[in-house]
């Protein structure tokens, strides 16, 4: 990033190769939309280039890139406030890869993952964000606290409540499916 800040734009390609997939996963899990998430990733790199002079070599670059990503996601939600725009695309669940050898197990596993995906999408935004950052983007609680501008304790409490809610929603969906 320091090279990009100094004007070596070609090095932005290295950053893209390193961060495109985690960023894409972040946006897909936050927005539930694959196509829009690709555009949002582009937007993050556009802002990296635009605001490269504001980057300070303090802490991890990933914290800064997720700082930009959160703002991009917030702008996306502001522009698309309708419920339809925030609904999970069916193909997000259907496209999940499966390596189960037996068709029954494969179907059951896909059903299970689809339920979890659906439960995750039903979490409140702030709880889902903490879970995604911690479980999928592998940020530590203190990094998330700096990102969200709150205490580490508050992040842990939020993560605890998010997991409890996710569990309740998941089991409720599973009961509904079995019934």
């Amino acid at each position: 990033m320091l090279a990009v800040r100094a004007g070596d734009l070609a090095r932005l390609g290295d950053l893209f190769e390193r961060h495109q997939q985690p960023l894409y996963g972040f946006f897909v899990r936050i927005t539930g939309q694959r196509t829009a998430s690709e555009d949002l990733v582009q937007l993050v790199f556009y802002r990296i280039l635009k605001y490269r002079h504001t980057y300070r070599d303090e802490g991890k670059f990933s914290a800064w890139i997720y700082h930009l990503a959160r703002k991009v996601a917030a702008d996306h939600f502001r522009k698309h406030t309708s419920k339809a725009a925030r609904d999970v695309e069916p193909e997000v669940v259907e496209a999940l890869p499966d390596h189960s050898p037996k068709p029954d197990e494969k179907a059951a596993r896909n059903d299970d993952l689809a339920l979890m995906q659906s439960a995750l999408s039903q979490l409140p935004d702030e709880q889902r964000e903490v879970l995604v950052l911690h479980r999928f983007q592998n940020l530590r609680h203190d990094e998330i606290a700096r990102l969200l501008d709150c205490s580490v304790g508050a992040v842990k409490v939020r993560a605890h409540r998010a997991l409890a809610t996710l569990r309740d929603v998941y089991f409720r969906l599973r009961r509904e499916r079995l019934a």
Partner: protein
Amino acid sequence: MNCERIQECFIDYQSGTLPTADAAQIRNHLKSCLTCQREWSGLQETLLKLDRLPTPVPSGRMAAQFYAWLEEEQRTADAPNPFAIARSRLDALIASWLPARPLFQAAAGLALLLGGIWAGSHLLNEQPSPQPTPSAAEARLLAEVSDLRNRVDSMGQFVAYSLQQQQSGNRRLQGVLTTLDRSETNDRVLAELLNTLAFDPSTNVRLCALEALYPHVGRDEVRAGVLAALPREASPLVQVAMIDFVAAARDHAAAPALEELTRSLSIDKAVRDAARRALVQL
């Protein structure tokens, strides 16, 4: 720790970031608490399912779009600035004028320096060229300008006199009184005093002007001026003073005018009496 506190620590316990003593405390609690066992089991299953969610993979379109955009940005950044291009061309042009070898460059610099010294000394010592003889048209123009200047001067004097006449009665009276203090009075001042005597609207000013004229009563033009103003005078007071003035001068030329006054019935009786006395004096 109670059950609520234990369950709050499940995340750290699960991730292995809890201190050893606290982790041991939780392990012991889980052995005996069925509620927390259920909670822990449910959390484990939830986290397991959550972590098994596959990582979404972007399409190739995203990378293609990114690199196309990056290439465009690089092209824009690498595009030379038009000002830089102009400056480089200017530099190249100047460089083409200069000789390539340093020795020649030094010689050219020295030649420029000597040329500058010669030009400076030549221009500074240059004698001013004589004034050309004015042509007939220029002479006519100068004459017109001179005439115009004289007219402007006259106009200025006239305006000054007019402004003086616009002054208040006290100021005009003060002006006349100053002439009384002068040891020498020129023709211009006498003309002004006679003018004041004839035309000033204030009786006091006219009387004062007549008083100022007394030292010059021996001059013909002064007596003629007073006699000329006498028929136009409307104030009996000033008329009587004028009659006394000409009587004091023993001016026989005033006799016809005095006789006219004695015969006129439209003027004040005191004026007629004064005219008769003056005629006797003459």
